[in-house]
């Protein structure tokens, strides 16, 4: 029973939370991936729109497992399964989702306290969106991504990015993150925990409150996210080293072709021989 008392779940319960959060959020992001995002007026229905699922789970269960599960679910279901894996750039989304959900989950001590749940939900969403915005602004400021339309006007970047951030937060954030979380958390509280064999979170058992260590880990993760995204887009500007290689390369290219042809012929012969041998045997 001692494991049931504490909110810090056992390893297998953590795995359960991970699986739960992964499959639900993965399913939701799969839909948003399949259904192209659409706009109604200035409200854009975007991917953030299902963030309420991991937020709810992080407030009820172990926040770290829920956050990691959600990010993995998004990666696996909507990127790898549909063959849209973008490489290094995906790392940014992975880390920002993890950090945002984790912060929200750590903030809630008592899931019955609606005000706290609401504040945490909007904080988590805001953190996630803000990190995305900062990465976008940095991309332009460091001139990794050339923006032709508004060259020489960095203020306009702040304005447009800031407006997009506020728009996302106020419309998508409130409509699709705050309200569903407020609806789901009190309703699920005390009902979903027994299904995983756990005791509901109470103020004494919770691992809540934002500690300094958690904040530092989040900051490090955020820096890693920026680095990943910048490295992913930096490929665009690293063109110069290509030129000299291409100029002197005619002989090299011919050599490569010859080598490739020889390799193909050799492999075909080997394969045919192997087939014959198998037939004889």
């Amino acid at each position, binding site marked *: 029973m001692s494991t049931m008392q504490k909110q810090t779940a056992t390893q297998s319960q953590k795995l359960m939370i991970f699986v739960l959060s992964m*499959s639900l959020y993965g399913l939701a992001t799969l839909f948003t991936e399949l259904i192209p995002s659409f706009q109604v007026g200035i409200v854009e229905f975007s991917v953030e729109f299902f963030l309420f699922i991991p937020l709810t789970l992080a407030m009820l269960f172990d926040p770290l497992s829920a956050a990691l599960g959600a990010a993995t679910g998004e990666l*696996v*279901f909507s990127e790898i*399964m549909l063959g*849209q894996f973008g490489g290094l750039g995906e790392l940014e989304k992975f880390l920002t989702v993890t950090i945002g959900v984790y912060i929200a989950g750590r903030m809630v001590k008592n899931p019955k306290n609606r005000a706290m749940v609401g504040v945490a939900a909007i904080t988590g969403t805001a953190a996630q969106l803000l990190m995305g915005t900062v990465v976008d602004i940095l991309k332009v400021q460091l001139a990794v991504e050339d923006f032709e339309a508004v060259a020489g006007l960095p203020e306009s970047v702040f304005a447009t990015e800031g407006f997009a951030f506020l728009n996302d937060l106020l419309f998508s954030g409130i409509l699709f993150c705050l309200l569903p979380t407020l609806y789901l958390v009190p309703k699920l509280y005390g009902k*979903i925990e027994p299904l*995983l*064999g756990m005791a509901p979170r109470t103020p004494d058992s919770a691992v809540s409150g934002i500690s300094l260590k958690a904040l530092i880990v989040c900051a490090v993760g955020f820096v890693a996210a920026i680095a990943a995204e910048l490295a992913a887009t930096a490929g*665009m500007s690293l063109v110069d080293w290509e030129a000299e290689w291409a100029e002197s390369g005619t002989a090299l290219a011919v050599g490569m072709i010859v080598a490739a042809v020889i390799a193909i012929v050799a492999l075909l012969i080997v*394969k045919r021989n192997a087939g014959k041998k198998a037939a004889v045997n």
Partner: protein
Amino acid sequence: MNRLSKKLSENILDKFSMDFLRNQVLKNAYGNDDTIIAGLDPRILLAWYLFFGLVPWFVNDIPFLMGCFLLVMVTTLLARVAGLVLFLFALGVFTQTGYLFLATLLFGGDASAVAPLLILTLKVATISLASVTVFSGLDPDKLSNGLMWYGCPERLSFSISYAYRMLPMLMEEFQNVLLSYRLRGNPPAHKTLGGKIKYLIYQVKIIMQSFYPLMLNTAKRSRTTVEALELRGYRYAAVNQSVKKIKLAALKVSCNDGIFLAVSLLVVAVSVLISTLL
């Protein structure tokens, strides 16, 4: 005209039902075990993907990019990827670069804008097709084994296998929950504009509400899954080196892999040659 457009939208909605989505995802995951791509070694394919996923970003040479693009197009055809994925790919490429082209034309741009846009489009298309080939062409078990061989965390390969198995079931369950909510609900009339907005709000609300039973059901299911895994010693096996060795013993580099790599090399070399001759 009005009737035609109505019919058209009905038709599209018919095609785009939940069943269709489920079938496409299933087909994508398990429907093409017998293709050439699926028969290759996952480690070789991942290394191949690393080349075609990275190198095009750094090259601005049209013949080279064209050669790479043609190659990955052929491999995508060989992998017999589901139609939906290809549609999403086309949509993605269009939203990344195609609309830029239209915008340039609209604002009085001329043909000189085509070349840079073509380069960008070729880059984006090559990279996404390469990932489509590898990640949809391989079946999930092979893919996760390949990732594991390269030292990816066990959690990731577990997630991939689990996702492919569970997704169809989850989708069906979500559909059932949604339908039962619809059966019991009373949707607002949606003839006027105000009614339409109300109807939209109603639908979004139903989707949000249906996550309540779905969460409870999935919680039960994930507990069952994890307990079954525990019974088989999953957590212990995941970190055990000898188990990993046994699991990965099935991977084998065959002659076909060599031919695949050599043909890819040939195409790349030919395109480099063309670009240097031009």
